[in-house]
């Protein structure tokens, strides 16, 4: 069988699903962050795949740009998690509700 | 009769208290700008109120001086069209009957105003005196009430009369409700006290007003066209002079009967009941004891001294002046009720243990004489009834002031709880004895003149039943003597009850209110001519309509 666009999309879909599943089910903020990364990368994979099969490079460029952004995002998110951990001695996202109205 | 405006003196008298209240309102509005303290505002309100009361009295005396007692025509007329659409006029004017009441109003309010000044003796911090409570509001309402009463007596337009009549109602409600006794439970667990009494007074009088309003509207639509103050012809009229003339011409007797009852009788009854509640006439009298017991002293003074007279005045002015035939038709029913008022009131007095309640019921009894005089429809009796209004208007304020004197000190009015007070308060005892004697109709004092004229007049009434009624109601002289002397005995005589060691005799504020009234009682008792002369022509005219 040839590896075509659908296969890419299936992988991307699986990644998305796993990421969402992680986000929804995990309490640990770090794990949620990892889920977010999965979802993000699923999206990026789609961009690359469409780019590859549509014949222009715009998607590839956009994916690279997204990876850079994801790195920055991860940094910020991890910093927040770290601060939350410092403040509450816990990384449980559901407990970090002090700022809730 | 010339009904054009010829003097503004009466209008000034009527609205002087209103000016005073406007001044107090202005003061309140300016208070933040002027940065006045609460105390300053209170003192200024009292000052303005007193000035208004004094000026009103002075103006009413000026009216008296200028008054021509030789005619029953209206004097000091001020008349213009007020609401053209409904042919309502602003029409003030007085005849002898009105003027006697206007002067009495001014005097009673002056006394009431003085009695509203703060307690000059030692203040008892446990029982704050009403005179220190929400002072500006109190004076505003008091002055509004005075304008209302003045207007009631001076209005010669039925609608204007009704407006002033209602104006009287509202301030009284608040004055009793807010400055009166706080709410409490009586021994039977029923709620009593200022708010209860105020609501009772308000609703009761309002019920009367509704009847009056219905009668007023009925009369208006039954009335014939008449000339308005601006010279135009209106299809109907509220003008009392026109109404009286039309009644004499038979306009109302010709009106259609309602449910088989002649129109005039129906209207008469409506008006009469409206006024009777205010008098108060048995069996509509029960608001009076409650209102008196829980009202502050000056309000009791005003209530007994002048507000009750508005009812009697209304009967003379409307029932007698406009519907003399209906009065004749109802005369013996009114006579019987009057006797019930007199005798029943006196008996109920005897059983009272609260001094103020006793005096309140004695008012019921004494106003019965006015009713009897009205019902008897002889010149002597009507003169007597009017004199009784004035006499009672002087004596009953004294009695309520006196009840206030002892209540301010002892914080109770339970007659049985005193005893031997003459030892501690000799002056108070003497003046109370005097007031009691005046009230029980001792010859030479004001109470006697009215009583004896009513009796003599009623005895000579056409209808023989009045001789029986006089004989029965004369019983009241014994009962009255009984309850007053028994009260004297229980409160003042006998061994001194040492519980009252702290009581002090009268202070100057109380003397200033009481002694002039006492002097007036003696003067009118030995020389009643000023009042009788003033009302003679008016009464003659009223009688001529019979």
């Amino acid at each position: 069988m040839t590896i075509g666009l659908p296969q890419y999309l299936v992988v991307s879909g699986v990644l998305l699903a796993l990421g969402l599943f992680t986000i929804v089910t995990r309490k640990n903020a770090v794990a949620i962050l990892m889920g977010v990364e999965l979802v993000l990368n699923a999206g990026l994979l789609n961009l690359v795949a469409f780019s590859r099969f549509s014949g222009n490079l715009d998607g590839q460029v956009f994916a690279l740009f997204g990876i850079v952004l994801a790195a920055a995002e991860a940094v910020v998110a991890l910093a927040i998690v770290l601060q939350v951990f410092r403040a509450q001695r816990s990384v449980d996202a559901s407990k970090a509700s002090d700022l809730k109205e | 009769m010339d009904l054009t405006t010829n003097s503004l003196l009466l209008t000034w008298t009527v609205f002087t208290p209103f000016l005073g209240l406007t001044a107090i309102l202005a003061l309140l509005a300016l208070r933040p700008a002027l940065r006045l303290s609460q105390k300053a505002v209170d003192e200024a309100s009292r000052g303005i109120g007193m000035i208004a009361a004094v000026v009103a009295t002075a103006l009413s005396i000026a009216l008296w001086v200028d008054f021509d007692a030789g005619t029953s025509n209206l004097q000091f007329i001020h008349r213009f069209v007020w609401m053209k659409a409904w042919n309502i006029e602003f029409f003030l004017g007085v005849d002898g009957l009105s003027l006697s009441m206007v002067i009495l109003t001014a005097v009673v309010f002056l006394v009431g105003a003085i009695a509203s000044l703060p307690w000059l003796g030692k203040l008892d911090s446990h029982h704050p005196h009403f005179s220190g409570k929400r002072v500006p509001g109190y004076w505003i309402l008091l002055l509004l009430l005075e304008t209302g009463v003045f207007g009631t007596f001076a209005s010669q337009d039925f609608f204007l009369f009704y407006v002033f009549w209602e104006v009287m109602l509202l301030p009284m409600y608040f004055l009793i409700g807010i400055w009166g006794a706080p709410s409490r439970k009586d021994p039977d667990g029923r709620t009593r006290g200022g708010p209860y009494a105020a609501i009772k007074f308000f609703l009761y009088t309002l019920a009367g007003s509704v009847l009056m309003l219905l009668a007023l509207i009925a009369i208006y639509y039954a009335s014939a066209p008449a000339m308005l103050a601006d010279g135009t012809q209106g299809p109907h009229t509220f003008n009392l002079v026109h109404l009286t003339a039309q009644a004499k011409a038979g306009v109302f007797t010709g009106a259609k009967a309602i449910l088989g009852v002649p129109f005039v009788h129906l209207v008469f009854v409506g008006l009469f009941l409206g006024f009777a509640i205010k008098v108060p006439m048995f069996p509509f009298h029960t608001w009076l004891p409650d209102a008196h017991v829980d009202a502050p002293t000056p309000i009791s003074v005003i209530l007994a001294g002048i507000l009750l007279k508005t009812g009697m005045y209304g009967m003379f002015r409307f029932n007698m002046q406009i519907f003399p035939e209906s009065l004749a038709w109802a005369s013996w029913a009114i006579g019987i009720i009057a006797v019930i008022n007199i005798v029943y009131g006196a008996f109920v007095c005897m059983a009272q243990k609260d001094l103020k309640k006793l005096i309140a019921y004695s008012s019921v009894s004494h106003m019965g004489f006015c009713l009897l005089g009205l019902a008897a429809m002889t010149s002597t009796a009507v003169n007597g009834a009017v004199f009784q209004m004035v006499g009672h208007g002087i004596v009953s304020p004294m009695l309520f002031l006196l009840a206030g004197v002892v209540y301010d000190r002892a914080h109770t009015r339970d007659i049985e709880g005193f005893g031997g007070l003459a030892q501690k308060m000799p002056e108070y005892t003497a003046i109370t004895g005097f007031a009691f004697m005046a009230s029980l109709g001792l010859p030479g004092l004001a109470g006697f003149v009215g009583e004896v004229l009513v009796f003599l007049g009623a005895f000579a009434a056409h209808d023989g039943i009045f001789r029986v009624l006089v004989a029965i109601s004369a019983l009241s002289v014994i009962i009255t003597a009984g309850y007053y002397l028994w009260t004297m005995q229980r409160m003042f005589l006998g061994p001194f009850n040492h519980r009252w060691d702290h009581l002090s005799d009268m202070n100057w504020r109380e003397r200033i209110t009481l002694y002039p009234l006492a002097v007036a009682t003696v003067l009118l008792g030995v020389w009643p001519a000023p009042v009788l002369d003033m009302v003679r022509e008016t009464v003659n005219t009223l009688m001529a309509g019979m």
Partner: protein
Amino acid sequence: MHDVAPVLQDFPLLFLIPLLPLLGAVWNGVMGKTMQRRFGHAAIHLPAILLPAGSFVIALWSFLTLAGAPHGTSMINHLWTWLPVGTLQAEVTFLMDRLSGVMALVVTFVGTLIHVYSTGYMKDEPAYWRFFAYLNLFMFAMLTLVLGDNFLLMFVGWEGVGLCSYLLISFWWRDREKATAGMKAFVVNRIGDLGFSLGVFLLFWGLLTTPASPAPKGHDDPHGVQAASHQAEAAPLATSIAFREVEQILQDPIKRDRIVNRDILGMGMMTLICLLLFVGATGKSAQIPLYVWLPDAMAGPTPVSALIHAATMVTAGVYMVARLHFLFTLSPVAMTVVATVGALTALFAATIGLFQYDIKKVLAYSTVSQLGFMFVAVGVGAYWVAIFHLMTHAFFKACLFLGSGSVIMGCHHEQDMRKMGGLRKLMPITAVTYFISCAAIAGFPFFSGFFSKDEILWKAFDSGNMLLPGGGVILWAITAIAALGTSFYMFRSYYMTFSGEYRGAAAAHGHDAHAAVAHVAAHADPHAVPADSHDAHGHGAHAPVESPVAMTSVLAVLGGLALVGGYVGLPLLWGLPNVFEAWLEPIFAGTAQRVTSAGFGHGAEWVLMGFSIVVAFGGFFAARILYKDGRSPFPARLLASPSRLVQATHRTIFNKYYVDEAYNVVFVKGSLVLSRGLAIWDTRVIDGAVNLAGTIGRSFSFLQGAIDRLFVDGLVDLVAKVVQAAGDKIRRLQTGHIQAYVQGLSLGALALVALAYLLAW
């Protein structure tokens, strides 16, 4: 008819007679307290005595002027119109004719003397000023009563004396009993006043409305009366209520007959008028049935008892009937009633007097009894005799009361005669004057009372005016028995008080006739006088001493008058001039012809006079035997007798026939119960109805409110409630948990995808 037309002579000083005491009353009432504190008693009693004395002088002056004027002259002083109303013209006018002249003299003279006496009797009274103020006020009221020329002015005095009587009886008000006595006096008097005023109303109405033409019999049907009154309004008979004008009207036989023939309530109008007026007289003059207040009135200071309750005020009823003789003589029924009530009262009170121990009570009942004699006199038409007895009574009874006051003061405010005795040696002047007065009241020959009382007995005997034939003789019999009783109990009081040994204080031993009672009483503290201010004599248990000269001098003057005062009215029988009768003759001339004699001759008069003397001495000797020196054991034995009859009789009479108790139950308790009942009715039923109306109103509005709330407003509320409930549920979704949102988001997206597929399929 008058022989001479009445002449009215202006005497402009007349008003000063009542006014001067009024000034005294006002001065002492207002300034007295200060004056007394600053200047002592003299500052009080000087004006208080001088002003009534001034009245006396003016009264005397006016009286002498009157005496010098021709027959039928009256002194008049018009001041102002009191009640200027329509047909009623009540004037303030004082009138001194021969009748009111005599009265004014008696009142001012005795009154002034009693003022003098009071300076001694009341000298330790802290409220000295108040006493004199009241006393002066009384003089004013009494003189107004006497000198007023019309019904209403008389009524002013009439009520005024009642007021003063109240004030003075309750003078020592700290004692509840005394205060009550005052109240009782006033209220009982007011009952009389009611009768009086109704009588005046009726008279006035009768004068106004009597038809102008003689109506046929049966004109008193309602239509007749109505027609009559209509007519009368047009032409009233009288526009004045002055006595003399009413008298003049009634002298016109046509007008008179119209009123006399008119029937009211099945009774002659004139009879009804007179009976009502007489009710007033019974109240003021303490006759049956309204006498009950007078014995209690003895609670007042003794000078008061002398002045008001013996000499002056209580005689007002007699004066009134005499003044209105022109009415009373027109009604034989009324005259009979007056005389009968008088006679019965005389006897009734005399029997009670027999057994009293309180010296003042004895005198009180004797006063009631003597007033009864006077009413017998006016009842039989012997008006001048009544006034004569009124005058002599004023002298001797005032003297007796003042003597008793002297005794009471001497015995340290002891009034029980069982604790007196032997005072003749200790208080000689009092004893002598008391004896003279006793002799006068008993009717010893040549004492003042003899002339007046004997004349009453004779006039009663000879009366032809009683309805019942021979009624005069019955009247005479009753009054003669009363006279016997009078003589007995007066001398009983004299001997118990003045003879024998002093039994008060230290010497209290039960050798008195009534040992048992006295014994108990003697052990009580003799000084246990009520804690009144007047108990300030600083006395110990020492013997009584004679009173100060202010008191004894007055006693002497009055005692002298009790002795000789009767000589102005010597019996014509003796062929001596009767100045008094001649003096009053013009007053009563108008009705003299209506007063008829039963036709007994001089022989009968002589016999009766002899009998009177026998009666007087009979009572005297009986009392002397039984009570002199307290030696006779008979009274004690009689009272100790086990006989039921004796015991019951004594107890009944001693307790005054239980009349007070009966009145108390019937009238006092009755009206109290009635008033309480009515008060409860008022709060429960009448006010209950008002409150019920309020409650019903409130319930109705509550119901309305409920309907409004449940149905009308309910619909609106329902919408709101649904929204609210939904929001309440939905709100829960917003938890703030991002995970939950994402979950929802994912599931939602999935669902959308599934939906898209399903739809495409």
